[in-house]
């Protein structure tokens, strides 16, 4: 009998079974109905991969674990003694289990005493999280089960290419598609757009104008749900004041999307009995990402969708534990339970669970890009510990971040393969991977899942939790403060989260093993979990959703004669994130390419299959030209999975959103040229 578990990759966390072999077998589970994409089917290929890390290294030489941990602790202590606790920073990941994310945050705040901790989810979910929290009082990617989508008559996907990034989800869109109710918003005809009845292809960076134009139409053509707005929201009048200035023809001139198409989209959503509006990274990864998501939430609220069974707004979380990863305290401004680190009551509660004085907890630290950008700079961290992330490839303005990582006195990276970041590290700590350890994940619908150990971890590796414990003890912490058994850590996490927005206190390994479907909040052991949030009211005092005006301002940089094209970045089906895992799986082999309209390619003297350079004010990357008429002639698309000269992030713009600190990954001014 196989071990029932979940896929190591995206936030859909498809159910799968792991068999001896090792091999993947299908398993029935609601989100994927037994289906998997190529990444899932080939996931075991990485278990015994020749490049798998099996020995710690210190300054490039193999070492024992004791030597490596002693060296890390000694150097950390020296740096801290000389430069203070904030000279040591921690960078986590949205793929880490809840237990790891939790313990990493505790390790930073208690064992290191540093405020400088953030994680790659900042590059992923932060805009939607901030906008959702502000509007609804709680941020859970999908406040309803994924399977609810299957009954929808209309679904609008904004900047979300699910047919490539989470293919099994497409199964739940069948009904909407059959009814001509699938609408996509994307500057190119992605695999998902090809399924849609209506494709809106806005100029990159103009989504907010599109949302405002649609809201305008909803009101001006009488589709707004006035009684819902009166009963369940505040702030509509101010929102309308802005949207009133976005009559459809103006939105058309700014976005390039026909006013008639905007009307059609509104009519489809308003005319459907059950309709959903879902956002993805395409609209979130902007220096105006929070405003853009706010614009979409305002539209959804105007149509009366959120907090109604069978309809809603949601954000499609990207990374495997992108949801749980943002709830347990590895984010610069948060403590476990989705608590704010500046809230005295939250600090007192968490400090109580940790057995430390509340005053000893540091305050908020730098956000991901700012943290990386400060490394080795005067006043910035001199040491960085990385778990579950590969910022050398995934951070924007990659050449700059590369320089900053190289300027550190100490870079420690825990990984399973020699990622691009691990290659820059002074100390590399090999860790087990998903099938080799227990832990919980929280999927895109806020359901807590148990991933189980199916195979032994290779000799020479050490679990992340154990590494944190070993380091904490060497830094002077009592061992019992840093448990290393996942179930034990989870029990502590439950207590720390109790009473917080993301309350896990009623979730136990026992209930999960028994197969219970538990969506947080789940405040006690008898509580059935909360598959659907907001049905009785939103999470703000008074129960109303808060609308706030957001005006379109556009991308951080403008096109110039020298850089006349927009670059937008994203993912392709066969690769995952920075590609450290998937690039090593032969079945997933993919080549770096840039999607170009044939006219645009011809103007640059390039043909399909040629090598090209894409040049921005930050830097340039190379890619093979893939001509397609399915992309706007003023736009290029490149995936960000590839390393070295092919890093799309060499060209992306590091402008940050003022609220979420999300970088502007999705729009940069570039030119296309022959290499």
């Amino acid at each position, binding site marked *: 009998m196989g071990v029932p578990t979940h896929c190591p990759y995206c936030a859909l966390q498809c159910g799968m079974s792991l068999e001896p072999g090792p091999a993947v077998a299908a398993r029935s589970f609601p989100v994927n109905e037994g289906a998997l994409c190529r990444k899932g089917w080939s996931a075991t290929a990485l278990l015994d991969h020749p490049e798998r890390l099996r020995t710690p290294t210190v300054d490039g030489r193999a070492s024992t674990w004791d030597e490596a941990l002693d060296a890390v602790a000694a150097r950390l202590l020296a740096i801290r003694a000389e430069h203070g606790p904030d000279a040591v920073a921690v960078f986590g990941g949205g793929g880490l289990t809840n237990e790891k994310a939790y313990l990493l945050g505790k390790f930073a705040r208690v064992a290191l005493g540093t405020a400088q901790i953030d994680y790659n989810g900042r590059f992923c979910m932060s805009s939607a999280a901030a906008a959702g929290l502000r509007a609804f009082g709680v941020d859970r990617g999908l406040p309803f089960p994924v399977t609810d989508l299957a009954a929808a008559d209309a679904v609008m996907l904004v900047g979300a290419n699910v047919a490539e990034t989470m293919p099994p989800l497409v199964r739940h869109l069948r009904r909407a598609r059959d009814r001509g109710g699938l609408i996509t918003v994307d500057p190119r005809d992605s695999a998902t757009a090809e399924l849609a009845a209506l494709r809106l292809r806005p100029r990159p960076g103009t989504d907010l104008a599109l949302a405002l134009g649609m809201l305008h139409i909803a009101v001006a053509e009488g589709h707004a749900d006035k009684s819902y707005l009166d009963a369940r929201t505040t702030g509509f009048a101010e929102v309308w004041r802005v949207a009133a200035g976005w009559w459809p023809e103006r939105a058309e001139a700014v976005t390039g999307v026909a*006013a008639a198409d905007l009307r059609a989209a509104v009519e489809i959503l308003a005319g459907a009995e059950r309709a959903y509006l879902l956002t993805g990274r395409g609209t979130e990864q902007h220096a105006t990402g929070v405003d853009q998501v706010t614009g979409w939430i305002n539209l959804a609220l105007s149509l009366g969708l959120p907090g109604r069974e069978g309809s809603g707004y949601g954000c499609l979380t990207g990374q495997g534990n992108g949801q749980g990863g943002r709830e347990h305290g590895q984010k610069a401004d948060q403590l476990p339970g989705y608590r704010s680190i500046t809230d005295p009551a939250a600090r007192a509660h968490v400090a109580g669970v940790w057995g430390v004085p509340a005053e000893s907890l540091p305050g908020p630290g730098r956000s991901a890009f700012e943290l990386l950008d400060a490394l080795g700079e005067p006043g910035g961290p001199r040491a960085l510990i990385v778990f579950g992330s590969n910022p050398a490839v995934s951070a924007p303005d990659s050449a700059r971040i590369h320089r900053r990582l190289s300027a550190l006195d100490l870079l420690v990276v825990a990984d399973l393969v020699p990622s691009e970041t691990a290659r820059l590290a002074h100390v590399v700590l090999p860790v087990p991977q998903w099938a080799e350890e227990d832990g919980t994940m929280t999927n895109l619908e806020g359901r807590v899942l148990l991933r189980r150990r199916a195979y032994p971890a290779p000799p020479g590796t050490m679990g992340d939790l154990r590494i944190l414990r070993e380091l904490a003890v060497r830094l002077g912490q009592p061992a019992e403060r840093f448990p290393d058994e996942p179930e034990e850590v989870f029990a502590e996490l439950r207590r720390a989260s109790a009473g917080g927005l993301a309350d896990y206190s009623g979730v136990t390994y026992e209930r999960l093993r028994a197969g219970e479907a538990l969506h947080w909040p789940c405040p006690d052991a008898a509580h059935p979990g909360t598959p659907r949030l907001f049905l009785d009211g939103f999470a703000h005092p008074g129960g109303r959703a808060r609308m706030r005006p957001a005006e379109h301002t556009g991308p951080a940089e403008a096109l110039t004669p020298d850089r006349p094209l927009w670059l937008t970045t994203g993912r392709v*089906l066969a690769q995952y994130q920075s590609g450290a895992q998937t690039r090593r799986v032969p079945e997933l082999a993919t080549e770096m390419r840039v999607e170009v309209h044939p006219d645009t390619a011809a103007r640059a003297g390039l043909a399909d299959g040629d090598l090209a350079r894409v040049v921005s004010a930050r830097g340039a990357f190379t890619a093979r030209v893939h001509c397609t008429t399915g992309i706007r002639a003023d736009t290029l698309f490149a995936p960000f999975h590839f390393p070295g000269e092919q890093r799309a992030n060499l060209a992306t713009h590091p402008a940050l959103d003022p609220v979420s600190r999300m970088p502007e990954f999705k729009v940069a001014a570039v030119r296309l040229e022959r290499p």
Partner: protein
Amino acid sequence: MRIVIAGYGMAAARLAERLGGHDVTVVGEEPRPAYNRLLLAKVLTGTLTADDVALTGGGTARLGVAVSDVDPRARRVTLADGTGLPYDVLVLATGARPWTPPVENLDARVLRTLDDHLALAAEVRPGTEIAVLGGGVLGLETALALASMRARVTVVQPAGRLLERVLDDTASAVLERQCRHHGVSVLAGATAVRHEPGEGLKLDDGTFLPAAIVIAATGVRPRTELAERAGLAVDGGVIVDDGLRTSDPRVYAIGDCVRGAPGLVAHAWRQADVLAERLTGGERRDVPEPPVTRLRASGVDLTAFGRLDPDALRFSDPAGGRYGALSIVDGRVGGAVLLGLPDAAAHLADLHATGAPAPADRLALLFGRALPAGAAPAGGLVCRCAGVTRAFLVDAWRAGAPDPAAATRAGTGCGDCRDRIADLIARLEGESA
């Protein structure tokens, strides 16, 4: 710096908003703060209320009182209530006023203000007979809005055809047909000669058009009376340089009151943005953008811009209510007229505005989405999720796999290709049988 803005319409509201934090006083002759005139047709039909169309604005507003005089030397304006306001910078944003044609005894309504529209809305009932003078954009939009309220509307257009300045004969004919389809009668080539208020219009061909209400939508003229009183250079409209400065260096003008204004809000708002930047230390200059004519009414979608040359590509589908004409000059979009082709219109207007090179395939440009969508998935991919091509499936089948889909895992992801695979296998089995 004390900034006084004369007029509180769309241009002034935008300017005042952009100058937030500065000492700005806006003086508006209308009794209410600025509102969006583009939405007035919706107020007429009752979909939006007067409150719904308010604009944001800014500064201190003096409402319901006109600026009656300017003393440029003293740098002071006088308001109609006799009070005075000193200024360091004066901005004229007095807009335009409707022009009514010289028809004997004419007592027509005009449609410029919110009150004009509210007053009309109060009088229109299903069946009310209304004559609209003028077959331009405003006349047609108004006529279509009134027709949607089930009024009996006739457009009296002295020129031989509708929108005679932007459309050719064929396009006008298609548009006229569309208007009729939506319940608007059109009398082209007819001129009103006398108005019998409450009864109707006598036309130049001697016929009588019964009409309880007559509306003049026969164009607007810049409001320059204040500029003239201040002794500024005026020629049909207020004359400004590319910094929007009038002949007095402390007085600026923006929007519909400026000479040569196209009467489009995009133009007025661009000037407001430019002036806001200049008044706060910026150097930006006002560079006019090519105007775009849009007719916006449910069921009728017209876009026209630029110029058509004799080589223009043309296509006409009168029965389908569609017409397209497109000129490409030196590889760029030189002009277009598009009726009932909203997708192409959005794309072409974009290319025209940005000056981007036109795509090689011109027909596709004109037809927009009407042409069949592009090629099949790349590389003969049948199943994207599993990365399985058609060739791969055929090979697996030929190699004897009983279920090539299972062997290749095709169809195990999003499940979208299941039917395609079943078809393919059925075909293979058919071929081998």
